[in-house]
């Protein structure tokens, strides 16, 4: 039987695109990131911490970007950035752990949505480097992936520091004549290793004048960009950005991660350049948004609807997807932005774009999908 493995890294380019999933842990306040400045009720609910009209960057006459997200504005204008407001899951616990768990598993389901997707896609498990998580541990979303590695640096790829000089050549000699699937699979792995080795020996600077800030988030994005550009078959990469839990003095807490998010995304998209960006889907998500009204400590409490950002991947950007709710009458529970866009309906079209024939009912079980029209 001819194995489908043969052509995976057969030529100098792999055929796959990459999903980059950025999880803002702690419940990012979507309302102060993408501000409904056309809604006076927003200002009434947030007299202290609301972002004033002169300070924000207007997007469409109704929504505006937090000034700390300014680096994202050019991507909005070029149509590469899409924003989904009132996004979230049906979990009502308002607990970080429960809500993250629920969202990453894709409901009451075994394994993570990303792990299941990587198993369900038709070319599952063929890439030698299916998925990486930048960090110390794998996120729940990646649970059950065909192969996934938590790495802190690119040096953790490859065969490690103890490889003697003749080792790869000897391996190549044995796999040259290996029977059945082992031959092509061995040659794929050797090709991937060669590319990784080039990455770690020659540290190429970021392309197109991209500048990564010296924080660990940007550094992680830089590693992801390197892997994408090296075309080693990376199908998914995950990275977290924490620090969003802003119960008090919100701007003191939330401004720095917003700056890190925006400058990191800007650097990543710049570094990838138009052609790589078009095959890379960058998803920014969080477990829930915050309560609409500010609390007495100039902060916000755990809410429901949040905001998601999508960058690249041929998305038809430049719009905020939402049927903006009436903040006087349409709030959820104790006064939260409602969830009007279930996160599965946002992820579904992205996954379909990534691997068109994938059966999404196994990725998001027990949930009828109504995919959002993200690609025009």
């Amino acid at each position: 039987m001819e194995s489908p493995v043969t052509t995976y890294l057969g030529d100098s380019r792999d055929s796959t695109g990459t999903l980059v999933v950025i999880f803002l842990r702690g419940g990012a306040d979507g309302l102060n990131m993408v501000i409904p400045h056309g809604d006076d009720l927003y200002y009434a609910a947030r007299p202290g911490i609301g972002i004033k009209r002169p300070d924000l960057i207007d997007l469409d006459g109704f929504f505006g970007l937090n000034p700390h997200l300014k680096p994202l504005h050019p991507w909005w204008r070029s149509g590469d950035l899409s924003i989904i407001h009132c996004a979230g899951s049906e979990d009502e616990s308002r607990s970080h752990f429960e809500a993250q768990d629920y969202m990453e598993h894709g409901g009451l389901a075994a394994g993570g949505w990303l792990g299941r997707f990587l198993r369900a896609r038709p070319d599952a498990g063929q890439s030698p480097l299916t998925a990486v998580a930048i960090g110390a541990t794998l996120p729940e979303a990646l649970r059950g992936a065909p192969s996934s590695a938590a790495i802190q640096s690119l040096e953790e790829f490859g065969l490690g520091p103890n490889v003697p000089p003749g080792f790869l050549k000897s391996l190549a000699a044995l796999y040259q004549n290996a029977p059945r699937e082992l031959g092509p699979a061995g040659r794929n792995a050797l090709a991937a290793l060669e590319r990784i080795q080039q990455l770690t020996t020659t540290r190429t600077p970021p392309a197109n004048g991209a500048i990564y800030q010296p924080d660990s988030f940007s550094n992680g994005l830089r590693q992801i960009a390197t892997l994408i550009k090296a075309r080693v078959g990376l199908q998914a990469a995950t990275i977290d950005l924490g620090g969003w839990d802003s119960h008090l003095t919100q701007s003191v807490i939330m401004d720095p991660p917003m700056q890190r998010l925006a400058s990191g995304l800007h650097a990543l998209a710049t570094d990838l350049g138009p052609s790589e960006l078009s095959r890379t889907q960058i998803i920014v998500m969080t477990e829930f948004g915050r309560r609409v009204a500010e609390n007495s400590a100039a902060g916000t409490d755990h809410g429901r609807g949040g905001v998601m950002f999508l960058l690249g991947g041929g998305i038809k950007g430049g719009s905020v997807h939402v049927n903006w709710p009436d903040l006087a009458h349409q709030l959820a529970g104790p006064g939260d932005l409602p969830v009007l866009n279930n996160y599965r309906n946002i992820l579904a079209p992205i996954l379909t774009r990534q691997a068109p024939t994938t059966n999404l009912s196994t990725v998001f079980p027990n949930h009828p999908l109504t995919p959002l029209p993200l690609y025009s």
Partner: protein
Amino acid sequence: MSEISRRNLLKAATATGALAGIGGFSALSHILNPLLSSNSDDLSPFQPPSSSEIDDATHIIQRLTFGPRPAQHAEVTKLGPRQFIAQQLNPTSIPDRSTDLRAARYEALRANPPGELLEYDARELLDQLTRDKILRATHSKRQLHEVMVDFWSDHFNIDPSKGDSRWLKPIDDREVIRAHALGSFPEMLKASLLSPSMLWYLDGRVNRRANETERPNENHARELLELHTMGVHGGYTQQDVMEVARCLTGWTVRERAKSGFAVGKVEFRKDLHDDGPKLVLGTHIPAGLGPADLDRIIEIISLHPSTAHYLAEKLCRRFIADDPPQSAIDSVASAFTRSNGSIRETLTKLFDTPEFWSHRGAKIKRPFHFVISTLRATAAHSDGGPALQNHLLRLGQAPFQFPTPDGYPEEATPWMATLLWRWRFAMEFSSQSIKGTRFSPTKLLRAAGGENQLAAHLLGRTPSQDESSAAITSGAPLALCLASPAFQTF
């Protein structure tokens, strides 16, 4: 807490060895692990295979175990391969006290009643399950039993990351998989149908019909027919799925979220059971049987010809070839039927087919098998801890972490992209870079009697000219053998 990050919580907890909810005993056992796994297998000189082809003893060891230990080829040759098969088919006849003693540290796995498991942190339970599996696969002398435990763990796959399954999977491992691995299939099926972990995983616990308007949840019924018994082409209809679902209504599990008492207890609730008459695969089940509907289902499907054929094909795929010959499937299926679903009798027949003896060395080891066969071949000791588990994750086969009910695939193709990480494992292992995993390279080399003999032991036959010269030029002969095509096969 100003910044909530589950990851940071987890890191901190791991660093202090004090995951929330673990009793003092298990925290202590983590400290004791490395001490307890001090070397007790001796590495005295042994005779590796001397044939250039895979001989009978190598073949039998490779297929019935997780790979040869140093002196095993000589032992099986002396005993006779067929005698070894007979022994392995009767695991209780094989003394294995040292493995049980080693595994005693995983005390959570013996928790009884199920509710006691709730006292543990769920991550601790998954860790103990995983370590126990690694330890038994590596050290148990009842190797065929462990191989079948692995087989049934996939056949009745549960990813315990769903709901209360997080706490209840150890019960399933103990009372479904391990208790019946070489026993009676109908009994195993019944145990699985009433396993609280499975009832969570496949939503059986919410399969109810309290009144005319409620529709049963078909998930468990469908997987029961499609994956656990008859196979997707087994000849049942959507109507059969719905009728089986009706039969299984009313079996509930006491939930952690609703009650602190007897959590995990499986109870039949008459008020949630559809007690009307049913028709399953042409057989009438009269009204009013209540919980006995489940027994009728087992009678109808567990020994159905489609079940016999489906299980025979899966067993032949594991033990003979990815694409097993029809002749072998047929004779194994009839052994299953004749023995009323005795797994031992079915395997006895399988190991007696000419196809079993003639298909040698062409199966690809799955990653778990690859890792365990490395540990066994080198008489290594591993705590089965985070470093080794991390390798299994990278290799895509961390135990108990396959998300969908079909279990880790047996055939080679889905695993072919794992070579790079296999090579990495081979390199890290042979350079003693895996924390918590150790072996003695000099003793091993001396016991084998030289590089070529060690290669013959690892490859199951004498190395070819190419293999010998590649080993020399590689600069790391052991790692090269472990990374070689031949070591990926069995």
